[in-house]
């Protein structure tokens, strides 16, 4: 596959891994947080940790929109879908996310709610057009990458004069969450960030500047391919060794400093900041999420239908919160692989394809035993 294989080349990987091993100073710990679930996934899927020296530790960040969505919002979606007139359209990732009382969208669907899995916002628009008697609600979720497609859907619905289309908006912002991680005084040492890939194609590299100026943390924006991640790690190691804390861009083939102006403008036109939004694991974060502007209120499911998010509590034994903050690793959770598996998830980190528990379960859980064996021998 052209434009893909060259970023997964095993020989190049070995070469970069050798450089990292040569340059990482053995008396030093390097703790880097990869913010995005996409990076976590690449790290696990390609076994990148096997190529790194032991003093480089990767801490999985909260960059998985499904994982950081509080359970109360899934409950809201289920209540919306339970309405006789509503067809709820959602990305498949959300279907198995645990809701209150052991429910999920999947279970609500089996109970008769009209919930349909779609691949894009345009599918939801098509359903609204085809079935004018249904109130089609799109479960909008995601970081800055998925907000422009939602904006496009709103634009399209407006143009087509659709009165039966609305969105349940859960779009959240990356820099706000990175800042919250750094502001939390919880003892997690992070020396630098592997910065978001797709998000940065939209917002550019400029919004991360404060992490270098105010927090003195290097950020290397990296693509989601495994060689991207390895190269970003090498760049972070060099910054640390040289005492630099800059915003560097490894993902130059897609990310510019100012981002995608058209997408940014369109999002700004349709959405505005929420005062605050609750993040699973991170709590209330000010100015960390978006809602529809007044001018687009007619497309807002939260205004069209009575949605009053009730606080919902995760299973008390579930460690997703600490895992999302980087304080714990999936294998540190007592539920991991015992009560909580992808088939019987207790927390959304085990369900979402970008969740660190899911990545660890699907690709990396043999390491747990490898380490045990190592310790034993």
């Amino acid at each position, binding site marked *: *596959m052209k434009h*893909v294989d060259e970023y*997964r*080349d*095993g020989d190049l*990987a*070995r070469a970069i*891994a050798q450089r990292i091993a040569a340059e990482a100073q053995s008396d030093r710990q390097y703790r880097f947080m990869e913010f995005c679930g996409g990076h976590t996934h690449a790290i*696990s*899927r*390609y*076994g*990148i*940790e*096997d*190529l790194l020296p032991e003093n480089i530790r990767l801490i999985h960040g909260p960059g998985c929109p499904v994982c950081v969505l509080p359970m109360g919002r899934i409950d809201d979606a289920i209540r919306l879908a339970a309405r006789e007139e509503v067809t709820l359209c959602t990305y498949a990732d959300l*279907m*198995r996310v645990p809701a209150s009382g052991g429910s999920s969208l999947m279970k609500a669907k089996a109970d008769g709610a009209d919930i349909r899995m*779609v*691949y894009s916002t345009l*599918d939801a628009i098509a359903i609204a057009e085809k079935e004018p008697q249904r109130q089609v609600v799109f479960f909008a979720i995601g970081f800055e990458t998925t907000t422009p497609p939602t904006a496009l859907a709103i634009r399209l619905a407006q143009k087509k004069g659709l009165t039966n289309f609305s969105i349940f908006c859960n779009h959240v912002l990356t820099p706000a969450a990175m800042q919250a991680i750094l502001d939390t005084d919880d003892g997690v040492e992070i020396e630098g960030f592997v910065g978001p890939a797709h998000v940065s194609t939209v917002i550019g590299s400029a919004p991360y500047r404060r992490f270098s100026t105010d927090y003195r943390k290097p950020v290397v924006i990296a693509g989601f391919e*495994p060689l991207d991640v390895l190269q970003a790690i090498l760049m972070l190691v060099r910054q640390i060794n040289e005492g630099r804390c800059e915003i560097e861009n490894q993902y130059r083939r897609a990310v510019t400093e100012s981002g995608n102006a058209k997408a940014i403008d369109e999002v700004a036109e349709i959405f505005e900041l929420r005062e605050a939004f609750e993040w699973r694991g991170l709590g209330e974060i000010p100015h960390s999420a978006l809602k529809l502007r007044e001018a687009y209120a007619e497309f807002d499911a939260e205004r069209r239908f009575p949605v009053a998010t009730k606080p919902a509590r995760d299973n008390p034994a579930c460690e997703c919160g600490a895992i999302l903050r980087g304080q714990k690793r999936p294998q540190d959770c007592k539920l991991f692989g015992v009560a909580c598996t*992808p*088939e019987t998830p207790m927390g959304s980190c085990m369900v979402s*394809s970008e969740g660190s528990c*899911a990545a660890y*379960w*699907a*690709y*990396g*859980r*043999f390491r747990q*035993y490898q380490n045990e064996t190592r310790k034993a021998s």
Partner: protein
Amino acid sequence: MNKHEPAGRKLDLRNGRVELSHGSGGRAMARLIGEIFHAAFDNEWLAAGNDQAAFDIPAGRMAMTTDGYVVSPLFFPGGDIGKLAVHGTINDIAMAGARPLHMSASFIIEEGFPLAELKLIAESMGEASRAAGVAIVTGDTKVVERGKADGVFISTSCVGIIPAGLALSGDKARPGDVVLLSGSIGDHGVAVMSKRENLSFDTEVLSDTAALHELVAAMVETAGGAIRLMRDPTRGGVAATLNEIAHQSRVGVRIDEKAIPIAPQVAAACELLGLDPLHVANEGKLLAVVAHEAADALLATMRAHPLGAQAARIGEIVADEHCFVQMTTAFGGGRIIDWLSGEQLPRIC
């Protein structure tokens, strides 16, 4: 099924549709069976017109299997539900190392289904069964109200004879055994997905649907005693099958990503759809776990057969109390190959 020609007009095979009466046991049903199924399947057992087929069997052990087919869409690049219903069930018999003998076919048809499409499907089944040398000797037809099924569902069963001395089973893999794969992975799943509503994309990928019993027969002839087990990695793909083997045999499996054949178009489609090709369904491939010393000979036999031309040695069985299937990635790291979680794509076969 009944061979006797009923009175009245012939079916309108161009524009006609299946009606409830076509399943009600009357003349209309006899017409449907005669003009579509008997015509397409055409064999002496069916022509006898009895409620069952009677035939002699050679001495030895028999294998029997059954499978339901609900694939959507009914017609996809490289095949259709009919072909799949013949090949898939034959393959389940073949994976015991058995020679398939005869099969049955049962149809649940939705009222309003175009007769022309039913005829195409039946003809495709007839063609597939003749090519495989496995006659469809008995069957059944039911029609359900519109909306109670989706076009047509097919269930087929097959019996076969296991050669003397052969006892393949999923619990027989042992550390040191070799894992062979008969060809490229993911073709069927990608071909079907490419025609799905909301997902359709242009691709030249064809389903790999094929009957594998002749390939199996060649392998059995080469070194039947060295074959521990065979499986066709259908739903859940190679990943699910290897996990089944690991758990049944209480062993681990180690495979090498670079050794797994995959067509570039399939890899590209999976990349685009975010799928792991190891989870994508195949309908004409087999995995064999074989004794180390016979692996080369068996691989050569597979490669000499058209359905095994791309066969590869993809890994080995290891001792592992956790029954992990592990892979060395082309990138150089290690990872687990897990079962597919949830539903990748309903109604793939």
